[in-house]
């Protein structure tokens, strides 16, 4: 039994470089690729330092190809790191993979661990034997999951016939039946509609609170992180760009938000027209600029320090009649661009150096 410390995950300069053999076609090409491979290296994760305490809920966010999945695979022991150190729940994941497996649950948004052609219940029952869970404990957990995730409406349906949201609920239950201390979720909300997303977020908050399960989730959706995680890490090209609290993150790195206004058709006709026949709003306040939008909409991008959102709405409403307004928050790509452009990353590193 590993000693119970307060640390759940600790990595030190964790890196992974993939050596990819260029494939040659055909049988003999395939054999030649084994004997005499032509190699190319991809650095998927570089010098990553992570420290996660027990009971934390932490988001790993970054665009596609940032190295999120690769990081999870190293933290579970599926992949051997190229260099660096990693400890999870007191285990060395790659060397003690099978021992660690009983302590963690893993959900991949794009891949199910359920038996595709069989009713959901069959998978949930089999998992007891795969994880050697005592019968009573398993029955208790299963009853709990059925209630919390409302599994009963589809528990006898073959997995292949479930909606994505239902399947994800099934997968969450499957990952938690053996009482893991740590739950990894790789893009758990990908492809889900708003209702399904909300339901899954609610469930994750609940198990984190009531069972004390440590949760590490990856996503490229800022909303997931804001809804769930007090703390997040931003990664890009295998590097950590940011590690800290989520509150205020949009203000710091958020770049521009966008106000999208639906203009009353009568007023729309009175507006002057610019290139591509776009209606033009004249005399915009400082820090606000107009960006292209579908008529009859007008889109205004503005920074947080320019003026508060409601003032911009008031300013616009004083000039033209508005049918409706919505705001678009910057996505992770915008934030990362902003981090690079304003040299924010550099500042963080300098801070780290001056502290250390």
């Amino acid at each position: 039994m590993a000693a119970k410390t307060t640390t759940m995950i600790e990595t030190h300069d964790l890196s992974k470089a993939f050596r990819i053999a260029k494939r040659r076609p055909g049988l003999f090409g395939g054999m030649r690729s084994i004997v005499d491979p032509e190699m190319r290296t991809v650095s998927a994760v570089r010098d990553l330092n992570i420290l996660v305490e027990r009971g934390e809920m932490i988001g790993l966010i970054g665009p596609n190809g940032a190295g999120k999945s690769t990081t999870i695979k190293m933290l579970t022991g599926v992949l051997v790191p190229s260099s660096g150190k990693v400890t999870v729940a007191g285990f060395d994941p790659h060397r003690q993979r099978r021992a660690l497996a009983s302590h963690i649950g893993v959900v991949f948004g794009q891949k199910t661990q359920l038996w595709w052609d069989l009713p959901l219940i069959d998978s949930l029952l089999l998992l007891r034997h795969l994880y050697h869970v005592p019968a009573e404990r398993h029955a208790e957990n299963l009853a709990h999951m059925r209630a919390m995730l409302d599994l009963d409406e589809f528990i006898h349906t073959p997995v292949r016939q479930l909606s994505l949201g239902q399947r994800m609920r099934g997968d969450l239950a499957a990952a938690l039946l053996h009482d893991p201390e740590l739950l990894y979720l790789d893009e758990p909300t990908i492809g889900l509609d708003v209702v399904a997303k909300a339901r899954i977020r609610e469930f994750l908050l609940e198990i984190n609170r009531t069972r004390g399960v440590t949760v590490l989730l990856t996503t490229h959706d800022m909303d997931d992180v804001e809804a769930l995680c007090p703390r997040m890490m931003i990664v890009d090209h295998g590097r950590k760009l940011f590690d800290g609290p989520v509150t205020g993150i949009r203000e710091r790195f958020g770049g521009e938000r966008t106000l999208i206004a639906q203009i009353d058709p009568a007023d729309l006709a009175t507006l002057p027209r610019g290139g591509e026949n776009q209606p033009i709003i004249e005399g915009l306040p400082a820090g606000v600029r107009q960006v292209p939008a579908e008529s009859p909409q007008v889109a205004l991008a503005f920074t947080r320090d320019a003026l508060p959102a409601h003032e911009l709405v008031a300013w616009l409403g004083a000039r033209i009649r508005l049918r409706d307004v919505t705001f678009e928050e910057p996505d992770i790509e915008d934030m990362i661009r902003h981090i690079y452009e304003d040299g924010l990353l550099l500042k963080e590193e300098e801070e780290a150096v001056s502290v250390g």
Partner: protein
Amino acid sequence: MITGITGIISDLSLYRRLIGMQLRTQVQYKVNLAVDIFTYFLVTMLEYMVIFLYFNTFQTLLGWHVGEVALLGAVVSFTFGLAELFGSGLDSFSEIIRRGEFDRILLRPVGALMQVASNEFRMRRLGRMTQGLLMFLFALHLLPALHWTFAKLLMLVFGIASGATIFVAVLLLGATLCFWTVETTELANILTYGGREVMSWPLSVYNRAFQSIFLFVVPLAFGLYMPVCYLLGRPQPLGLPDAAAFLSPLAAALFAAVAYVFWRFGVRRYQSAGG
């Protein structure tokens, strides 16, 4: 020691449950399954008929009579069917790798090989086993003089068990190659289907180097052909003593051990799939 034994028992019961999941999937389509098994039976029967075509023209083959070759072919067929059945999961391992499902297998606290082996269970292989069994009975009918002893019965069991083990080990080697590239699945097929074809004829039709390979490198002849020679009372290949056939399980165990070590090596350097 005790934990080792209870470990094996719990692994076996888990294996049975995992296969059970596969069977439950297949019996959802009962008609399909029956047609599948029957088709496979017919195909393998046709394959086997080559033996009778040959003996239609010639009386003997290097001193072997039709009944003897028929019995050899039947035992090989049954053994191969058995290996194909229990090796289905290994046979389709490239699919597991390609679909990224091996990640999931590694995330569970039970052995990877057991999970892979039980990932599929192609019931249609029963078609080949049925064919082998029927032809074995037919061959016995052609060999009224064959005198059975306890040693010969034991040797039959040895041959089938060792032969199936070696065929499965070849599938395991083929599966292991998938850790490096998934484009060489044909390589294992050449060895399994080729090996089955080669084993179905008296070994002396091939040259000595070829015989040695199948005796000592991929020891299909050691594990399967030599026991059959023993029970037919035919001389062993390359002048080996008759009693050497009793070592067939040893040859199979050695070969399987080598394949397993290679597999473990492959698992350790598994690089997962992108995306």
